């Protein structure tokens, strides 16, 4: 669903990420348009999760630049030097970005409701009433209205992940990062989470960057699918094209093994 504004929501420019001697991302360039849904697929270690973590500031760029909404993020050019931005400026932009993790990472010392309202109240400065109202709306959206006062450890994996999604949405993000959000779930619980994500894709304009092994889901929801291998984009096409007629041998081999 391309938006009217043509500035990309996310743009990677010559991004390099090294962990010690290991170069995970090597001169990576790509962009994601506003409201676009892009799925990243590929073998483990290909760098897909690292891309999400870089956008969420959980990892530092080794070199290159990231642009959010056209503005440089975390590092910028000043004259001919590459300079890290002030944390204050980074935080202003990072509140527009939300992430849902494979391990849910709900806060075990709070109830479901407290998990959801924590950041809106203390980061966005919402009032308690406002935050609570929105939280109940989101809980209804993910189908867990009756669990507001429940303890996260009492919920099933699928329920916890749906709470995690509600928690991320409570910040009203422009960009939502989904890191293998169903990989840690029992097979019968995967469906309920995917359904919530499908709903978000259909009913909102949030830009979504998804790492997943659920190929069917990727096909239904994505505007584009990018195949990664060893830190590089090998193929980048709409799902219908990529899945039915992959151009690259590596993509073909991967899809054959996975599907």
């Amino acid at each position, binding site marked *: 669903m391309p938006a009217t504004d043509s500035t990309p929501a996310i743009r990677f420019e010559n991004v390099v990420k090294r962990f010690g001697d290991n170069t995970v991302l090597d001169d990576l360039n790509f962009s994601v348009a506003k409201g676009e849904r892009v799925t990243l697929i590929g073998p483990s270690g290909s760098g897909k999760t690292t891309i999400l973590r870089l956008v*969420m*500031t*959980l990892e530092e760029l080794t070199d290159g630049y990231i642009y959010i909404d056209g503005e440089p993020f975390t590092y910028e050019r000043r004259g001919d030097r590459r300079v890290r931005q002030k944390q204050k400026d980074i*935080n202003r932009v*990072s*509140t527009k*970005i*939300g*992430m849902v*993790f494979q*391990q849910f*990472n*709900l*806060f*075990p*010392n709070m109830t479901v409701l407290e998990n959801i309202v*924590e*950041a809106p109240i*203390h*980061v966005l400065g919402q009032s308690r009433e406002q935050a609570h109202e929105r939280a109940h709306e989101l809980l209804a959206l993910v189908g867990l209205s009756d669990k507001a006062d429940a*303890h*996260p*450890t*009492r919920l099933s994996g699928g329920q916890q992940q749906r709470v*995690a999604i509600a*928690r*991320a949405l409570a*910040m009203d993000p422009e960009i939502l990062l989904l890191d293998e959000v169903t990989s840690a779930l029992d097979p019968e619980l995967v469906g309920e989470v995917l359904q919530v994500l499908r709903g978000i894709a259909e009913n909102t304009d949030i830009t979504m960057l998804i790492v997943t092994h659920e190929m069917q889901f990727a096909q239904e929801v994505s505007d584009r699918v990018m195949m990664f291998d060893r830190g590089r984009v090998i193929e980048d096409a709409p799902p219908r094209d990529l899945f039915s007629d992959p151009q690259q041998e590596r993509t073909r081999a991967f899809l054959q093994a996975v599907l």
Partner: protein
Amino acid sequence: MSDNFDALAALWPRFLDGIVATLQLTVGGSVLAFVLAAALGIAARQDNLLVRGGARVVIEFFRGTSLLVQLFWFFYVLPLFFPGLFENREVAGLVAGIVGLGLNYGAYGAEVVRGALNSVPRGQYEASVALSLSPTRRLFRIIWPQAWAIMIPSLSNLGIMLLKGTAVASVIYMQDITFVGGVLRQRTNDTFFSYGVTMVMYFLIAYLLVLVANAAEARAKRRVGIEVPARSLFRPRAARTQGVSA
């Protein structure tokens, strides 16, 4: 045998004073130690090199020197720097005792706090970053409450060591339980009885501390969603193998 108990009964008021003195040192020292442990433990995890380095120096210094040396040092040296502060020997002893115990066990406690903070699963930190929580909020609302349940057993073991450490207070003129135990020994000439009674008193206080700590740990764990079986509440927690000097 009944002579012994008569002597004990006669000395009982002094034993009570001794218990008060011991408790003053224990509670005062523990509070100071806890505050220092928290402050130093958090400081030792900061990115800022000055803060982290400074905390490390303080921790290693007070862990590396002996408690008795520190007590003597504070007892004899502090009055030189703050002459007005010490009117009499008892006050000097109490202040030196609390400061010495607090600093010494605070340094050990800092390692416990740091270790507990580090063992909170990394995903909690990452979720906090994803929600853009400020570092302060992250520490107080997310990480510390989870670390608290982890650190209680080790801290309570340090508390027991602190209690045992107060027994040296008699060398800095505090009339604590050990001191009165010595008086009882002189009166009854029965070492087994008098120091036996003394040890039982310390044991009871220590066991009380264990019960309180176990209750606190159970409550902390429940807040984080872990259930604790009721029988374990009465058992002293095993001495953590690396909690003290590592």
